[in-house]
């Protein structure tokens, strides 16, 4: 079955037609910003006269159906994660995810909080993460330009990764979303154990692990 999948990640050869389409995709990214945390406050200055995101063809959109770019602007609680996954799956391909700040990367200052997830990448593919608490508009625009370059090169293919390794993502989602159900007796959160998170990563398909390293080194 693997042979039937016509893509792989970093060394994907994109056709000339695809690279033409990628030019239009990178020059016209419409955002759906999921204002979960403090990162949303950095977006108005990025969009308005001071930093003017619209000169790159970027703009806000009202619904997931219309959007190309999902912005996770801050920490994600487990209940929010469920809605983020719904929104992500409503978006049409090609679609890209940008994580704002430390929280989607490793939990940030909420790393030991019981309702907050620490590693967004375990549950959905992240194409670009912006470190900082919070990243300033300069950093945000810099990240968007890097994302545009990645789209042009055909490297921002998180949505293909999600489709190909859906079982792995789905397993992690199910494991963490179990926390949203009511518990009537003392219950230990499986995700509080770093060893478990490590083992989830060890189970990850090679492509995802590879991509994780590349992304973190960059």
């Amino acid at each position, binding site marked *: 079955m693997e042979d039937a999948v016509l893509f792989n990640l970093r060394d994907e050869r994109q056709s000339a037609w695809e690279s033409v389409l990628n030019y239009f995709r990178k*020059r*016209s990214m419409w955002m759906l910003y999921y204002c979960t945390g403090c990162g949303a406050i950095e977006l108005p200055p990025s969009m308005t*006269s001071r930093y003017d995101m*619209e000169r790159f*063809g970027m703009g*806000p959109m*009202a619904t997931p*159906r219309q959007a*190309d770019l999902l912005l996770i602007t801050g920490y994600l609680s487990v209940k929010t994660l469920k809605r983020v996954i719904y929104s992500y799956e409503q978006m049409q391909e090609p679609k890209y995810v940008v994580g704002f700040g430390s929280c989607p990367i490793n939990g940030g200052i909420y790393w030991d909080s019981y309702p907050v997830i620490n590693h967004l990448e375990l549950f959905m593919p992240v194409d670009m993460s912006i470190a900082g608490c919070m990243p300033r508009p300069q950093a945000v625009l810099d990240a968007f330009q890097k994302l545009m370059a990645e789209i042009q090169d055909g490297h921002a293919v998180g949505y293909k990764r999600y489709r190909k390794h859906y079982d792995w993502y789905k397993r992690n989602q199910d494991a963490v979303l179990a926390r949203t159900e009511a518990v009537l007796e003392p219950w230990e959160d499986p995700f509080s154990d770093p060893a478990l998170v490590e083992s989830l990563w060890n189970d990850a398909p090679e492509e995802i692990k590879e991509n994780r390293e590349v992304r973190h080194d960059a």
Partner: protein
Amino acid sequence: MRFLHMLPQLLGVSFLAMAIGLLLMGLGRQFTARLQRRVGPPFYQAYIDVLKCFSKGSITHGFVMDLGSIMSLAGLLATAYYVPFVQWTATGSGSLVIILYMMTIGYLGMAMGVSASGNPQAPLGISRALALMFGYKIPLVMVILAMILVTGTSDLLNIVNAQQGGPSHWFLLKFPIGFLAVEIAFQGMIGERPYDMMIAPAEIASGPMVELSGKYLGLAFLLHSVQLYVETALIVNLFLGGAANPATFFGKQVVVYLTSMAVNAVMARYRIEQGIAHLWKWAGSLAFIQLLTIKGGF
């Protein structure tokens, strides 16, 4: 056979209407950006947006949605065949009755298509759009009636001919009250602020477009572009004396559209009942005064 004979003209006008409409959209966005002291997107941004939309995946909610999307675009393109471009129409006729009749098909097609999506925000936006239509159609029809009374013809080509001989013959200077009424109605026709309550992204999640993805959104963009072309061309023909060459005609369209975008940039949004009341009160009374002055022979 006559249809086959006309096919190249019809296709030409279709592409022309979309190309001009998208260019107007891009220029409008850049103009708004400059008003806000931003750099703004390039003037060809709307072309990029449409091509990107057509390169994306899309979700249909059934046959009615497909039909509605196509029907709305087809209805407005059919209108474009009757609107003179530089004293020429694809069908050879510029009947204002047909134009007014056909323009509604665009909205009805959109209403049918997006209501089939099942999202409650979409019919909400459509009901606002159709309610607003009552607001701007009445002043528009009154002014058009006045122009028909003046010129004695309902053919837009003849109305353009009646204004030949320099700017002093334009109906803009002869009937400024009617022009003002149509400008206010135009703001509602293209759905810009203060009459953008049918889109209202922060309120009803962009209304009719809420479930449109990929190619359907691309079609909605094309629909809006043809709408802009038709409505700006209508005003240019009615009041600005048409044009002798395409460049002048396009220049006048740009002036009409950017005037509206300037108002859009500084206004806030009305509620739906405020919008209709405003249109009837101001545009309606201006149009009525214009009609009275013409009928009274002033």
